[in-house]
């Protein structure tokens, strides 16, 4: 299977603090992986580097054979990488449907269209994404007024509207009830299984991680310390010592 993402020697520091240290990482098409690690391990920074939010000091990021190192977020998104944020990042004053529809327009390269009616463009795709994420009944609600779990779902819907081939999810179930978290992760599984979407997520809930990721990467102090299947990582002594021990898995 071809590598969809290749990260070589990625390094980032803020002043004297090295938040990502010469990280080598790869993902294969159709894979569903998780990055785990204690707070401050560098998981979110790593995602920020991959999606262009931060500039790398050194290293290379290659997506589908193309170098995307230090490209701007919008260029990377256009290449087929979407992300959902740890704290829900949505368009709070717009309705749920308008949130998704704008993402659909961006994906359709219609964001410069100034004379077409927004309400008539991308209608089907908007409806499909809303239905997929279980947000159809909430389509006319103002996004900022949604419950936390629904905001996270909307965040996921916005990311999916971009028709990504690689999806980064930063703590996708944070703030959700157990039932919401279960259905969200089932949706992610389905996207991965049925549509072949490559998914990389970070998560603190080890139950979710071990149930939904087929490959794990443990980060600690900006470095990758262990990589492997959930069973391999669970059995690893370093993993037990730096992180998993405190989670009793």
């Amino acid at each position, binding site marked *: 299977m071809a590598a969809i993402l290749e990260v070589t020697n990625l390094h980032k520091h803020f002043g004297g603090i090295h938040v990502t240290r010469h990280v080598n990482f790869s993902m294969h098409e159709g894979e569903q992986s998780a990055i785990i690690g204690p707070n401050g391990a560098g998981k979110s920074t790593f995602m920020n580097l991959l*999606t262009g*939010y931060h500039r790398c000091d050194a290293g290379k990021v290659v997506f589908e054979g193309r170098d995307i190192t230090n490209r*701007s*977020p*919008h260029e990377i*998104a*256009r290449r087929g990488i*979407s*992300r959902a*944020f740890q704290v829900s*990042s*949505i*368009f*709070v*004053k*717009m*309705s749920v449907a*308008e949130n998704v*529809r*704008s*993402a659909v*327009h*961006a*994906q359709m390269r*219609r*964001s*410069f*269209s*100034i*004379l*077409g*009616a*927004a*309400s008539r*463009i991308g209608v089907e795709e908007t409806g499909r994404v809303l239905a997929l994420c279980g947000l159809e009944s909430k389509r*006319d609600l*103002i996004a900022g007024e949604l419950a936390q779990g629904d905001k996270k779902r909307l965040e996921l819907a*916005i990311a999916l*509207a*971009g028709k990504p081939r690689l999806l980064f999810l930063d703590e996708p179930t944070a703030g959700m009830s157990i039932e919401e978290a279960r259905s969200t992760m089932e949706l992610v599984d389905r996207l991965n299984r049925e549509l072949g979407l490559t998914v990389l997520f970070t998560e603190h809930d080890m139950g979710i991680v071990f149930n939904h990721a087929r490959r794990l990467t443990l980060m600690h102090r900006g470095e990758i310390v262990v990589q492997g299947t959930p069973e391999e990582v669970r059995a690893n002594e370093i993993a037990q010592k730096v992180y998993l021990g405190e989670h009793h898995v």
Partner: protein
Amino acid sequence: MSAPEVQPGWLARHGLARPVAMAMLVLFLLVPLLPGEYWTQVSTEVLILGLFAMSFNLLYGYMGQISFGHAAFFGVGAYASAMLFVRLKTAGGSIGMLDFFLSLLAGPPVAAFAALVVGFFCVRLTGIYFAMLSLAFGELLFYIVFSWYSFTKGDDGIQGLLPPLFFQDAVNYYYLTLAIVTLAFLVLWRITESPFGYIMRTLRDNQRRAAFLGINVRLHMLINFVIAGSFAGLAGALWGPFSRSVNPGLLGWQESGVAVFMTLIGGAGSLIGPLLGSVIYTLLQAVVKMYTVYWPLTIGTIILLIVLFLPGGVLGLIEKRLKARRSAGDGET
């Protein structure tokens, strides 16, 4: 200043956009029936400044950035039009109908070019930095016009912009202004309801998220800045023949403040809000000035009250009432 309180599009969402716009159009059409020319003149001013305020609201209400230098484009449009007007004028001081319209058309593209240059720098910043840079550019353009006597006639301004005989009649010029502003309103409405208009709303709400959708934030902001500048330029072009002169004050920060005030009074959450704000501001100014010289004190107090008690402006208040009534109705059923 934070992003506007009201969600653009709520009038449309409640099916009120067309009725409100139609009601305003009918009222505007009936204005010349009032006795005397005074209210027709005031209403012409309402329309021109309303268009100026609507163009400002593309930046504030839809893109979430406040500009304190937007009058620069109003003034550049007014000067571009006036300078061409003067060149096309005959030796006798009159201007032909075609030349008059040509001079009006000069305003928007020249203002758009000025907006392109200023916007190139401004869109690199957001919030207070955007506001301050726009103010700095506005003042820079003001001083260029103020000081470059050989080109702009400096603080004397350009006088004698007498339109063709037909439009020297206040009612005829009023209807011309109404036609142009209505057309501009329709184009602006189309833009704000287009995919581009909704992308502007995403930039207002969350620029970072928008970038991760694949949206080139700066480029979209720049295009919006240029569109806003060109409509301000159109308003400026209409101003010269209306007041028969242009002066550097049209580019100053006080003129920019007028657009801000009108938008805050009417409500930044819809296209029609600033136009309503222009109606309230200009009529109030006309009435207050009949009785007292303390207009700045009056408008200052009104803005203070609006910011404190009506952050969504008059339309925001109406929306709150509508929501409350709807909630009460739902509670009863």
